[in-house]
């Protein structure tokens, strides 16, 4: 299997070099670019497995590039933002980016995010329903692109990255039992969110968030096997 090719768009030369080096040390092939124009030229050279895109670029900014890129390609995108603000994050994810990385980031976090996105896209392929990516269950609404959970009464229920991943895994396997080991492995792919946290703790937190007055969360523990989301899931 050939090494995945990553296209890096970053205007700061030193940071570009450092990021490139980090990715290369982890076995990725990197094509560094400084501007949007260079990115388009580089895309013509050959297929790319993932684009790492800095949002603050001279000339065409990352948001516009992301939109243009998504219009003609399904290539996974992780954007790098110096703002780290919530609106930026949501805008980026809504434009079809697969994940985001806030500056400053460490090599570990960078590699973990890249690996997670590549694995997710590789394992599941691109979701056919990614246009909306809205899932409803038990009154809750989960927006996959925005990574946002809304309660039955419409309030935002905050989820950590690990909790979101766990919930999507449960939803993808709704009304089927998932083995604990499988869930542990899934949560490992998100290294930024602490790998040593036990799945049981995550499940109990998720249960608390999905509960409501006099109503238990629809997550069932199957003793000795794993967990199951025991409710009907509707995709829109």
């Amino acid at each position, binding site marked *: 299997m050939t090494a995945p090719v990553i296209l890096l768009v970053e205007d700061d030369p*030193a940071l570009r070099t450092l990021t490139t080096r980090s990715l290369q040390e982890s076995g990725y092939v990197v094509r560094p670019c400084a501007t949007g124009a260079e990115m388009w030229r580089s895309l013509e050279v050959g297929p790319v497995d993932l684009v790492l895109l800095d949002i603050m670029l001279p000339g065409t900014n990352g948001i516009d590039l992301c939109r243009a890129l998504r219009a003609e390609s399904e290539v996974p995108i992780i954007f790098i933002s110096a703002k780290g603000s919530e609106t930026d994050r949501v805008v980026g994810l809504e434009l079809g980016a697969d994940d985001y990385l806030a500056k400053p980031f460490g*090599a570990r976090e960078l590699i973990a995010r890249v690996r997670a996105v590549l694995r997710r896209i590789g394992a599941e392929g691109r979701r056919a329903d990614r246009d909306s990516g809205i899932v409803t269950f038990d009154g809750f609404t989960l927006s996959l692109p925005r990574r946002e959970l809304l309660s039955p009464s419409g309030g935002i229920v905050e989820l950590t990255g690990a909790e979101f991943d766990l919930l999507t895994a449960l939803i993808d396997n709704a009304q089927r039992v998932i083995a604990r080991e499988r869930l542990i492995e899934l949560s490992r792919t998100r290294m930024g969110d602490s790998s040593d*946290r036990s799945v049981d703790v995550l499940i109990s*937190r998720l249960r608390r*968030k999905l509960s409501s007055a006099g109503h238990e969360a629809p997550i069932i523990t199957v003793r000795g096997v794993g967990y199951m989301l025991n409710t009907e899931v509707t995709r829109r």
Partner: protein
Amino acid sequence: MRWDRAASAGLLGRLLAILLLTLAIEFIASTILYERSSRALIRDDEAHRLAEHLVIARKLVSEQAWPERPAMAQRLTTDRYDVHWAGATDLTPVRPLERGEAFQRVLEWEPSLKDSDLRVELAAVGRQAQLFGALRLRDGTWLRFRAMEPIDDGQPGWHRILIALLPATLLLIVGTLLFRHTLRPMGMLARAAERVGRASELSLPEAGPPEVRRVIRAFNAMHGRIQRLIAERTQALAAVGHDLRTPLARLQLRSDAITDPAARRDFGRDVAEMEAMVESLLAYLGGEADPEPPVRTDVAVMVATLCDAHADQDEDVAYVGDDHLEAACRPSGLKRAVSNLIENALHYGHRARVSVRGEGDTLTIRVDDDGPGIAVDRLEDALQPFVRLDPARGRNTQGLGLGLAIVQRAAEAEGGRLVFENRAEGGLRVDLVMPLR
């Protein structure tokens, strides 16, 4: 605030005092003039009447024979003057009568009385003046007379003063209203000046007299300059903070090349601290420039998630509030605020107990710690930006000292407030109280 109000009332008071003083002077002067001229008028009138009466009385009495004279004098007595013929027995005046001012006036009217040895005097009878006198007939007998009514000696009439006061009172009322109206822009200006620095949009309508308009225009221009200045500084600082993140990212990536694990860990911690500073600076500066819209959020879950994150770092933070409580809030700002409160609790103490509770129409986010609390006289300081309450600057102090200032702003943005309380059992309790909508 109180000072301003006193000054503005003082201006109105002063103007009214000026008005009052003018009115009083005008009133006194006119009263004196009026009284004096009317008194002179009355005296002229009196002298005229007396002169005529005396001429007629002298003629009629002189024409009568002596025995008829008392009867004639009796007939000449009117309800104004009492005329009496003294007869031959009394040829000298009872008293030597002065030839006073009244005498002169009578003579001015009737010069023919000059040769009759006329004596007229105003004499005080009680508090009033009474006119009496005598004149000699050609045969040497005396005709005496006196006024029946005391002469009005010109004491000011109180009813006249009251009537004169009425327009003055009206003038005062109208003056007060007009002054108030004229001064209203000043009050508006004072209130606006108090809001400078708190409200961003603050343009006053130009109204009132030209001088006041000029002041308002100058004020608006000044406020605009201050706003621009603040905005420029904020932008510059935010840009610096923002741009610092790229070199910070470089530093963090470079740190991977450090082979000594301990040194690498310390290096990473330093970068994280710098990043935290940049973040708090941006949060502090960006609070107003980029207002976050309120979103319906499960605040209890949000706060519990923050506590979970701390607990995962093996810190003694526990969430003990309701499982769910939804409210309209600015989630990023509020989350940062609660995060700052928890970090403060851990910084000054070792343990944080956090809860979210709704009661009626208020939502309370409570953070209890086991630290030393805050002395009552330092509470104000705690809310000041860039102020730390640590006695030693260098000892284990992280960040820029913006923590509580950011919390305070977030609370204000939610229409809420911060309440500090030193708990009886030790430690500080901070309540962020906001409306539950």
